[in-house]
């Protein structure tokens, strides 16, 4: 037992910083064509005609293909993890500005890009809808009919629905909310909004499809190789084993690269032209590929005189954009926890996802939970202030403690919510006097705490292969996209097999050799794949012991592994292959009440404390300190856990203060990273990352996932700190200085002119 809790430097770090690590973007194969996409310029419309003649005639162009061409190799070219709603290239209709309509293939990507500009499309424009609340009742209907993919049981009831934009209508009922509101001492209601934002992996989506004899190899930047294989095989009507999905390292994923993105298009094109085809999106094309849901959240709480939250009603609207992607699951999974990590007897939750004519929204680090925490932790702070209570004390009084049932009815297990809150307060020195600033600069501090149910129920498989020299290869379809999974998985296998983790080779992301994995997403890998790796390593260890017994070695022998193989096979030959598959137990929630006795395999807990300085004359907010605390169970690699916490918090800092997809009639008006601003070094405050002492009993050696936990509390902690500093409340993200100044001036009774 030496590998657990060891802050081993990342195994792949050296190959990355020396430029040796492989990425799909760098791959070239003989005969490869480059694809460039022609995109819709209208938000909603019927395609009347597509004129590709000028593009075809351009020198160097191999071919120009449209949605009709795709149907020659994929008769029903619609894909998606939740709904089969996304055409590989638009067919009949376009649903957002930026939707792929046609593709140019050329040997030279610059020629393809130039030719794509020559394509002309004629549309009959249809009424469009952009707002998530309006879309529930709007006349504009984005898709004529709902087509659930059939993968998720809780979406099946939506099949065949027409004249609606609602892609999911989740509800939860616990106790009697209306009665509690009527009987309690105080009722508070607020509405919060979040903006649509982007993942911004520094490597954009890239897929390279190579056709073979009745087969296809796809090198792709995906977080979900097993899903991609099955989905491409389904589209082609092939057996899964004819499709090979291979994934090198990813230059970041954050949920942008889950399920099918460019793979279906690359596959169809490669089969159509019978040559390898590569699609490598530009950074700017990320604006039209996948994003994070904009939301509106109306939250209402009933509170007793002594500061107990007795009832909470949550109405959340999710702006899913033009394709469902995994959005309905975002609305459903977040529905479990929308009322926050508090012990509340009476809860009503409605979580509604809608189609709109914006670029699609899907999974992004936190899977909707940061949008929820933004609202419920802002709201919770506002209640405490209205009651004249300390904001941390108010939370402590209501916090959901171990063993108590959460809104879904599932009792909390291995969920160190109270410890995380205590740790944040302690690190913030909460009870000590605080410097309030001087002159125009006022200082304030705030906290935010959130929790998330893990994805469920999903499967991971792993193989551990011990060679005759005793060296070990671990095969897994968990993708290392910068989060350090190769290192963590090697540490788990090493712990079981009693070897140093750095001696293990990790082969990741190859559906030809590694077993099924649901995906590298939702902070599920440490727990799910970690358990599978542990099982595989234990299986290998048992088989090795059996082999030793077979060759007559006494039990517990310390013979060199090489000797065992040599004795058995007469030379250095043979293998021991251990296999592990893990799937946790789960009770699906009752569709009417959302109640379940086992709604998640584990809980993720994260809390943030923020200290800010607000310039009362300009509205500028400077975050000067961020304390991020999480429950990682027993961390496998504490250093990687801490960098996950700081990385997640910086990402959410961007979503809080600077990042914003700005729209004008469905058109993104800032589609470049010169105008869509992610945080830079000078925006990053002093960061502290802390893990509380905890154990996840069902996790591998007590560990659990942590990739999203620090995204939860950042936004409300900052807004709460702003109110603490200057007494104004911001309810909409991002928090830009002008909004703060406007709020300050409105509060002073001398509002700033509108323009």
């Amino acid at each position, binding site marked *: 037992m030496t590998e657990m809790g060891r802050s081993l430097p990342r195994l792949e770090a050296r190959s990355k910083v020396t430029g040796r690590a492989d990425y799909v973007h760098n791959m070239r194969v003989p005969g490869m064509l480059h694809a460039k996409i022609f995109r819709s310029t209208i938000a909603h419309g019927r395609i009347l005609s597509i004129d590709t003649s000028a593009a075809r005639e351009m020198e160097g162009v191999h071919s120009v293909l449209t949605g009709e061409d795709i149907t020659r190799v994929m008769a029903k070219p619609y894909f998606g993890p939740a709904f089969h709603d996304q055409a590989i290239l638009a067919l009949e209709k376009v649903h957002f500005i930026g939707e792929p309509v046609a593709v140019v293939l050329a040997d030279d990507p610059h020629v393809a890009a130039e030719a794509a500009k020559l394509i002309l499309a004629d549309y009959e424009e249809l009424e469009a809808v952009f707002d998530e609340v309006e879309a529930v009742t709007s006349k504009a209907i984005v898709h004529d009919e709902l087509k659930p993919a059939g993968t998720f049981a809780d979406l099946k009831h939506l099949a065949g629905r027409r004249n609606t934009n609602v892609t999911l209508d989740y509800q939860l009922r616990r106790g009697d909310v209306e009665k509690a509101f009527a009987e309690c001492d105080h009722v508070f209601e607020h509405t919060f909004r979040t903006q649509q934002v982007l993942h911004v992996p520094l490597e954009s989506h890239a897929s390279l499809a190579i056709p073979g004899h009745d087969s296809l190899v796809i090198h792709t930047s995906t977080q979900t190789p097993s899903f991609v294989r099955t989905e491409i095989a389904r589209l082609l009507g092939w057996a899964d084993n004819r499709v090979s999905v291979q994934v090198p390292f990813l230059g970041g994923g954050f949920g942008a690269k889950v399920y099918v993105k460019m793979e279906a298009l690359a596959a169809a094109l490669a089969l159509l032209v019978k040559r390898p085809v590569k699609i490598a999106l530009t950074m700017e094309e990320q604006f039209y590929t996948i994003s994070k849901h904009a939301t509106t959240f109306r939250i209402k709480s009933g509170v007793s005189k002594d500061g107990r939250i007795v009832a909470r009603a949550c109405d959340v609207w999710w702006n899913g954009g033009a394709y469902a992607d995994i959005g309905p699951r975002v609305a459903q999974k977040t529905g479990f926890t929308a009322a926050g990590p508090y012990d509340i007897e009476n809860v009503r939750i409605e979580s509604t996802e809608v189609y709109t004519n914006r670029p699609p929204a899907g999974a992004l680090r936190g899977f909707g939970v940061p949008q929820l925490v933004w609202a419920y932790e802002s709201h919770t702070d506002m209640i405490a202030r209205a009651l004249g209570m300390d904001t941390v004390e108010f939370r402590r009084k209501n916090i959901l403690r171990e063993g108590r049932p959460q809104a879904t009815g599932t009792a909390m297990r291995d969920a160190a919510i109270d410890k995380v809150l205590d740790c944040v307060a302690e690190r913030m020195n909460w009870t000590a006097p605080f410097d309030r600033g001087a002159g125009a600069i006022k200082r304030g501090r705030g906290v935010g705490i959130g929790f998330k149910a893990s994805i469920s129920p999903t499967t991971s498989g792993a193989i551990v292969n011990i060679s005759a020299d005793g060296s070990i290869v671990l095969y897994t379809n968990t993708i290392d996209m910068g989060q350090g999974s190769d290192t963590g998985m090697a540490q788990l296998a090493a712990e079981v097999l009693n070897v140093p983790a750095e001696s293990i080779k990790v082969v990741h992301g190859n559906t030809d050799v590694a077993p099924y994995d649901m995906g590298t997403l939702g902070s599920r890998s440490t727990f799910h794949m970690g358990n599978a790796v542990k099982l595989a390593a234990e299986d290998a260890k048992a088989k090795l012991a059996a082999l030793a017994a077979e060759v007559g070695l006494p039990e517990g022998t310390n013979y060199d592994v090489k000797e065992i193989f040599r004795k058995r096979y007469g030379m250095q030959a043979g293998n021991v292959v251990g296999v592990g598959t893990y799937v946790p137990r789960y009770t699906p929630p009752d569709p009417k009440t959302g109640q379940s006795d086992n709604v998640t395999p584990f809980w993720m807990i994260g809390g943030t404390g923020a200290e800010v300085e607000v310039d009362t*004359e*300009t509205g500028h907010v400077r975050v000067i300190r961020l304390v991020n605390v999480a429950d990682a169970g027993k961390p496998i690699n504490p250093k990687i856990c801490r960098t996950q916490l700081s990385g997640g918090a910086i990402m959410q800092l*961007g979503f809080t*203060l600077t990042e914003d997809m700005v729209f004008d009639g469905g058109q993104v008006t800032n589609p*470049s990273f010169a105008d869509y*601003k992610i*945080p830079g070094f000078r925006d990053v405050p002093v960061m502290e990352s802390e893990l509380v002492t905890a154990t996840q009993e069902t996790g591998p050696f007590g560990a659990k996932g942590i990739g999203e936990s620090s995204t939860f509390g950042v936004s409300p902690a900052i807004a709460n700190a702003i109110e603490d500093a200057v007494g104004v409340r911001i309810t909409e993200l991002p928090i830009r*200085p002008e909004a703060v100044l406007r709020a300050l001036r409105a509060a002073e009774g001398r509002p700033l002119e509108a323009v």
Partner: protein
Amino acid sequence: MIPFDWVEPASLKEAVSLLDADDSTVRPISGGTALMLMMKPGFFVPSRLVSLAKIEADYSSIRAGGDGSLRVGAMTSLAELERSAAAIVNFPVMKGALQTLSNIRVRNVARVGGALAHGDPHMDLPPLFATLGARVSVVGPDGTRDIAVEDLYLGYYQTVLKNNELIAEAIVPPLNGARAAYKKITSRSADDWPALNMGVRLEMADANTIKAARVVLGAASERVTRLAQTESLLTGAIVNDGLLKRVSESAAAEARFVSDAHGSAAYKRELLRVYLPRTIKEALS
């Protein structure tokens, strides 16, 4: 990208001859950081780019005059200027200001001449140099002319430079004891184009009395602008809270603001109101 000609003349004179007075698709390129942003989305499609990378090395030099002035070759990178002892000893305001011009990757590549000639009102070097009273020496087919930096700009991306004229160098006159300060105020991330930038240069008659003032505003308006009324209010005035309040109101009334992604005109007016006194105080501190 449509193929275009790429030429690398060995002299400034040759570079000028390869430009075309009547063809705006022929452009000079130095660092290229701004031009690339226009070429990537297709806002600018060149027929020929005249690279200045190989012109005489002299245009990449920084020279301090014995009188405290500074001559900066047009091909000097922003990072070289920021690290130049001559620049920061003679002009203390430059050090901090230049470090905020853009991120270090851009500063390593972008050139002084390009930053002055581009005409994007959100850039910081033009108002900084205008504040310091800098002039540029411009070379064209008919010879050399001398233009004050503040007079270079006509409007949004519009300058007085002809298509076949090149900035050869910038000359910053000595401070001679004048006090200067520069502020860049962003409203999104710190590494962003400014919502507003401004500089003041004050020649003092004594510790509290201003003899002459330059007040320059950028980013918030269509072009780099000297605020003449505000300057005349400052000239000969004694610095006190009342004066700062008056000039703050004067500047807010005098300047013209444009609403954009960085903020509304009303907000930018407020920023100027707040930052003018702050900048003057910083200059005098």
